C-alpha cells in the first residue's frame, strides 16, 4: 500500500492517498480523472495493449496519424497519471484490474452501456467487494431508457443536448461548437459527480454508482440550453436561431466585429454600456453623438448606426480596440489565436502555463491550474507512455497481497 517509487511526491497535494482507476479511453472520462490526478490522486489508466487510449490516436488535422506517444490530445488529458497495459479479455488481466479496483476509491468508465458487465466488472459486484467504491459511468444517453444503445459522436451530443438548434444563422444550418468542447463539459461534470460520491463515501462509508448521460449534462448546462428549455416550457416557444442574445431586447447588441487585423467580441447589454460606446466611437462627431446618445431603441437608423460602428472597428487593430474599450469600461475583447494566447502577458504573469518535460514530446508548456487553492494543482510528471507503469503497479499489487 505504498505510493509509487517513480513519483517524486515532493509536496502535499489535496488528493494524496486517493486512488482512481481510469477505464475510459476518450476525452470525457480522461478529463474527469485528470481533475483528480492534477490535484494529487494516484490515477491508474487501464490501456489496451498495443493500441492504448483513443486519445493517443485522434488526429487534430484531417489525414494525420499522430504518434501515440506524443499526441497533443493525450498529453493534455493524461498528465500525472500512470498507465498499465492490460487485456481485459484475458483472465489474468481481468483479475489484475479487479484487484486494483478492490483497493481503489473510484472507477471511471465510458464503455457502451452494458459492456462493463459483459467484461465481468459489474458495478454491483465491484461494490460488494469494495463497499466504499464510487463507479462513475459516462455514456451518451445514460444507462437506461429507449435510446441508451444509440451511437453518438460529439456533434450528435451537441444536437441532442446542446443549444445547437439556436446557434448559427437563421437561414443556414445549425452550428455546433468547435473542438471537443462538449466532451470536456461532460468530463468536468463527471469529475464533479465522482467527487460528490467520494465525499459521500468519506462521510458515510457507502459507495455509489453514478450515471452520467452526456445528453443530460448538456441539457442542464449554462450554455443557454437549460434556460431555453424552461423558457419553452413557460411559454411554448423555441429559442430562435440567428438572433444574437435572444435573451435581450432594446438598443443592446452583442457579437463579433471585424477589426483591421482580426476580430473583436462586444457585449452591449445596457444603456450605460451603450452610451460609453457611443462616446468612444463618436468622439468629436457632434452630429453622431446628438443622434445616438441615450437612445433606448433604434428604429430605421439601425443600419446607419451599424455601418458607422463597423467602419470604426474595421479601421483599428483588435488589441487597440480592446484596450480603448476597456479604458472606457466597455466589454469588448480581441479574438486571440493560439500563438497570442501562448505569449500572453496576462497569463504569463499569472503563471497560468507550466513547463514540463516528456520523454518523447520534449519540453512543452502545459496549461496550469484550472483553479488555485492551498496544496492544489501541480504537474508531477507528464503523460505516461503506453504501459509505462505495468510492472510497477503489478508489483504494488503483489506487495498488497503479502501485506494487506
Amino acid at each position, binding site marked *: 500500500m505504498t505510493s509509487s517509487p517513480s513519483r517524486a511526491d515532493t509536496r502535499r497535494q489535496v488528493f494524496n492517498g486517493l486512488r482512481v482507476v481510469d477505464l475510459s479511453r476518450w476525452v470525457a472520462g480522461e478529463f474527469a480523472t485528470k481533475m483528480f490526478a492534477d490535484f494529487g490522486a494516484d490515477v491508474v489508466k487501464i490501456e489496451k495493449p498495443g493500441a492504448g487510449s483513443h486519445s493517443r490516436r485522434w488526429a487534430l488535422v484531417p489525414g494525420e496519424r499522430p504518434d501515440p506517444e506524443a499526441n497533443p490530445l493525450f498529453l493534455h488529458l493524461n498528465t500525472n497519471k500512470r498507465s498499465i497495459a492490460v487485456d481485459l479479455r484475458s483472465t489474468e488481466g481481468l483479475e489484475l484490474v479487479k484487484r486494483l479496483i478492490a483497493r481503489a476509491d473510484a472507477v471511471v468508465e465510458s464503455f457502451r452501456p452494458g459492456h462493463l458487465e459483459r467484461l465481468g466488472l459489474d458495478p454491483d459486484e465491484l461494490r460488494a467487494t469494495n463497499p466504499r467504491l464510487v463507479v462513475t459511468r459516462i455514456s451518451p444517453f445514460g444507462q437506461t431508457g429507449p435510446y441508451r444503445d444509440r451511437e453518438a459522436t460529439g456533434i450528435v451530443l451537441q444536437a441532442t443536448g446542446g443549444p445547437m438548434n439556436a446557434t448559427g444563422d437563421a437561414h443556414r444550418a445549425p452550428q455546433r461548437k468547435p473542438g471537443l468542447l462538449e466532451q470536456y463539459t461532460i468530463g468536468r461534470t463527471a469529475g464533479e459527480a465522482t467527487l460528490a460520491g467520494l465525499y459521500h463515501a468519506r462521510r458515510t462509508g457507502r459507495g455509489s454508482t453514478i450515471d452520467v448521460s452526456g445528453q*443530460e449534462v448538456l441539457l442542464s448546462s449554462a450554455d443557454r440550453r437549460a434556460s431555453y428549455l424552461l423558457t419553452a416550457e413557460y411559454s411554448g416557444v423555441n429559442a430562435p436561431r440567428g438572433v444574437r442574445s435572444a435573451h435581450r431586447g432594446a438598443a443592446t447588441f452583442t457579437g463579433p466585429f471585424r477589426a483591421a487585423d482580426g476580430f473583436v467580441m462586444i457585449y452591449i447589454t445596457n444603456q450605460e454600456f451603450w452610451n460609453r460606446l457611443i462616446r468612444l466611437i463618436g468622439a468629436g462627431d457632434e452630429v453622431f453623438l446628438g443622434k445616438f446618445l441615450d437612445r433606448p431603441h433604434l428604429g430605421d437608423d439601425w443600419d446607419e448606426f451599424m455601418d458607422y460602428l463597423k467602419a470604426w472597428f474595421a479601421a483599428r487593430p483588435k488589441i487597440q480596440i480592446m484596450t480603448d474599450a476597456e479604458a472606457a469600461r466597455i466589454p469588448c475583447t480581441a479574438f486571440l489565436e493560439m500563438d497570442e494566447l501562448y505569449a500572453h502577458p496576462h497569463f504569463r504573469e499569472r503563471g497560468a502555463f507550466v513547463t514540463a518535460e516528456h520523454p518523447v514530446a520534449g519540453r512543452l508548456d502545459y496549461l496550469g491550474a484550472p483553479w488555485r487553492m492551498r496544496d492544489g494543482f501541480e504537474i508531477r510528471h507528464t503523460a505516461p507512455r503506453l504501459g509505462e507503469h505495468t510492472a510497477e503497479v503489478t508489483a504494488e499489487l503483489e506487495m498488497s497481497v503479502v501485506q494487506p
Partner: protein
Amino acid sequence: MTDTNLPLDGIRVVDLTVVWSGPGATALLGDLGAEVIRIEGNNRVSRQASARTTNASVANSGWSRNTYPDGKPEPRPYDRTALFNWHARNKLAACMNLETPEGHEAALRLIEISDVLVENNTNGVLEKLGLGHDRLLELNPRLIVARMPPMGMTGPMSNYLGYGPNFNSLVGIAAMDGYEGEPPDSAGENYHMDESAPAGLAFAVLTALWDREVTGRGGLVEFAQAENVMQDIGEFFLDYQMNDRKPAVLGNTDPALLQDAFRTAEDDRWVVVSIRDDRDWAALTGVVGDAGWTALGRTAADRRANSRALRDGIAAWCAPLSSDDVVRRLAAVRVPAAEVMSELRLLADPHLAAREWFKARSHPSVGTYRYPGHPWRADGFDLAFGRPLPGFGEDNEYVYKTLLGYGDEKYDDLVSRRLVTDEQFA
C-alpha cells in the same frame, strides 16, 4: 429537514453570485444537499428581471418576453423569469442590503456560521463592502471562499469587463468557432465559458471541503473562469507548440469524421450524421442503397478527399425524409445520427420521459411547470430537487430568526424600515 443521504447535508453555502455562471455553480451545490442561501438586496436587480418590468413593457421585446410564463412578467417579475429560475432549484433567498450597516452585520453573522461562500462579482466588489476574503477567513477559519473573477484576481487584465463570450475570445475559442472555411465571426453565440464554470466550481468547492476534512481549515479558492475554460482546448495549445499551427474553423465538420448537419423535409428540422469508420460507411450505404456518390467513400482517405461530394449526397438523401425517418433508419444500423433538437421536441422526447428527466414543480409565483433535471444521477445517495425557486425574500424569517437568532423586535424593526422585505424595488 435533515436527509443524511445527501452528500452535502449540513453544509451551508452563502451565495453572493450574480447573472449566470456563478448561480449555475451554486445550483450544483444545492443538488448535493447543501443549504444554499442567496443574499439579495431589494435595491438592485439580482435576478435579471427588474421589479419595474410589466406585461406591457415586454410586449414588444420579441423572444425575450417568452422567458416569463405565458409572456407575462407580472406580478413579481423577479420570481418569474426563466433567466433566473433555470438555476434556482433548492435555493433559499434572504433580503440583505450589504451596503447598509444592518445588512453588513447580518451578512457577517451568517458567514460566521457557514461553510462556503461563492461569489462571481467584479474584482474588488467584496473588498468595497468590507467582505474581502482575508477578513472573512479571519472571522471563520473553516470557511471556504470561492471567488470566480473571469481573468483571476491578479495580472494586467484582471479587471477587464466582459461576459462569457468576451473571455472565450481571449482564450482562443472564438477564433475557431464558425461555419466551415469562413471567418470566425459567422457562428452564433457561444457561452462555453459559462458552461464550463459551474461543474468546475462545484468540483473546486468539494475539493476544498475534502481538504478541510483533513486539515480542519478552509481557505481561498481562486477560480479564474478563463483559466478553467482554457482547459477545454488544451490539445490545441500543445499542438501549436509541437506543430506550429493554429486550429482551423471547421464548422460542423471534423478532422477524423465525415459529418455535417442536413436539412430534412420538415420545416427547419435538421439532422446530424457522423461516419467514424468503414463499418459506419458500409452501414450508411446499406441504408441509402445505390446512389452515384456512394462509390466515392469506401476508404477513410476517399471520404476525406471527397468529403464535400459525399456530404452533398447525404444531404440529397435526407432532404425528402422526415427527421424521425432519418434517425430511425440510421440508428437501426448503429450509425451516429440525431435530430438537432428544439426545446419543444425535447420536452416531448420519449427517452427523456422514460428517464423522468424533467421535474414538475410548483411555486406560488409561477404555478406548476416542468424544470430541467439534474446533470447526472446516483445509485447510492440522493440529489435534492425541492422547491423550484425561492421567491424574493421568501426565507427572510428562517435566515434572520432561526439562523441568526434575531428576536422579534430587531427583525420587525428591519422590516418596518424596509431593509428586509419580500419584494424587490429595483
